């Protein structure tokens, strides 16, 4: 997914109409870089034969797909579903489109990110698995593909959980799955010639009308910077005054 770069300080529009995305740096969702990296490693280790990258959104998502191609993916599918970057496609609609793509492409494995850092949904991979009737292994920090299954270690609340999913399945990548590579300049050049297929949501017969109407977007309650204390003793005194220790 093409999202606002994680280093950009987001600004809520004064009219409450959402977050201002005009003229801000956009990048590949950080979790998706990890997902792409994992797919490429599976190809490099001979487990996967081809890596196809897919993005749903505005036309400019082609740039994001080019980045994935430069990292080492083989080909890309861009599904244009919006003409304004402020129109986010909901996970349910994205999952329906991805399910249709999966029916065409018949992948052995789908890897998504755990969460898009713009809408913070953490939903698309799970929804896709449901629509396809596949198993799911979310929040992955380690993936081992062997024969017809993947053994996946997942980051859960109490620590780590390992499960085995039958393939095909959907895996979602957590932060510690790998460290994504940077694309080298020659690979960026090569990526320009790799195939990028452009489709629309209508090609897959998916209605992308939102189920959730955004009634308003507001700044969160702010926090003011407090005071600097000069010593550990002063800190302890302040915390005692506050009644928190």
């Amino acid at each position, binding site marked *: 997914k093409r999202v606002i770069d994680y280093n950009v*300080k*987001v600004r*809520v529009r004064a009219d409450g109409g959402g*977050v201002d995305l005009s003229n801000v740096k956009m990048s590949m969702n950080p*979790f998706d870089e990890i997902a792409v990296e994992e797919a490429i490693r599976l190809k490099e280790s001979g487990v996967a034969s081809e890596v196809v990258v897919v993005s749903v959104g505005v036309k400019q998502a082609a740039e994001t797909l080019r980045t994935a191609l430069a990292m080492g993916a083989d080909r890309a599918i861009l599904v244009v579903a919006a003409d304004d970057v402020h129109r986010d496609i*909901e996970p*349910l609609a994205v999952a329906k489109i991805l399910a249709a793509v999966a029916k065409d492409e018949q992948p052995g494995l789908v890897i998504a990110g*755990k969460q898009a*850092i*713009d*809408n*913070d*949904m*953490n*939903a698309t991979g*799970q*929804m896709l*698995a*449901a629509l396809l009737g596949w*198993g*799911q292994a*979310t*929040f992955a*920090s380690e993936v081992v593909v062997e024969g017809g299954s993947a053994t996946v270690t*997942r*980051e*859960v*609340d*109490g*620590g*780590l*959980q*390992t*499960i*085995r*999913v039958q393939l095909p*399945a959907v895996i979602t990548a957590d*932060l*510690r799955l790998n460290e994504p590579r940077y694309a080298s300049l020659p690979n960026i050049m090569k990526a320009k010639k790799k195939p990028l297929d452009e489709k629309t949501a209508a090609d897959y017969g998916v209605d992308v009308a939102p*189920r*959730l*109407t*955004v*009634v*308003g*977007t*507001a*700044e969160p309650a702010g926090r003011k*910077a*407090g*005071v*600097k204390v000069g*010593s*550990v*003793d002063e*800190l*302890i005194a302040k915390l005692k005054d*506050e009644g*928190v*220790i």
Partner: protein
Amino acid sequence: MAVLLLADASGGHLAADSVSKTLTAVQSLGEVHVLVAGPAAAAAEAAGLSGVAKVLHAEDAHGLAEPVAALVAGLAGGYGHIAAPSTAFAKNVLPRVAALLDVMVIPDVTAVIDAETFERPIYAGNAVQRVRSSDSVKVFTVRTASFPAAGAGGAAEVTPVAAAGDGGLSSWVEDRVAASDRPELTSAKIVVSGGRGLGSQENFALIEALADKLGAAVGASRAAVDSGFAPNDLQVGQTGKVVAPQLYVAVGISGAIQHLAGMKDAKVIVAVNKDEEAPIFQVADYGLVADLFQALPELTGKL
């Protein structure tokens, strides 16, 4: 219509604090039925929470997404809302439930405005979105840090329900759960968190020593977890745990927005950092510009 609350019993026991806070969040929406997929003891514990009209209990060992989602979707018929605390278990299961029902999921709800309208943070908490759902059933997870816990004192009846058949899509291999005597991170009154500034796993013991002195939970920044100073389940932030304790002490943490997303609702924030320009000081109530290797032992010693 009633509310179906999917309890988290994935750890083999009821995540009572999260369930109880979720109960508070959904109280205005109707009678609450709590579904426990787990051991019978967890169902019995849920029955004792106040505000529970009924407990549905299905035997389940590991909380795998496919059978639990099928179970919930199978029960969905009679409910207007399906809710769960935003734990890793529910974040795994509920979007799958929503897709099976052809509805959207509304993650991390911080306020229930009315039966159709909910607030949730987006962009790492830098904006709060109010959404209205047009779906027939509202499926959502609740950010528990935003709600107080409901009390005990309930005496609901426990009704057994049949677990969904295991379709064999996934199977459990192993849990690696670190046992700890410290309070749980998401419900602790005090949290002491360490960042990259600690420098090593050995030095992270300084954080643990202060936490133990204060009876606090231990947290960490992503950098500290990535560097192996602390285990993954201690990560606080946009993509880790969200906490709202009475006191949050951030040591050797710069204050990236992704970290602030997980702790900026703490009542009192203390920052210890040797860089007076560190962004963490912009949200800290009390900032101590100091070398943590001097300040931490002194603080622990004097408390």
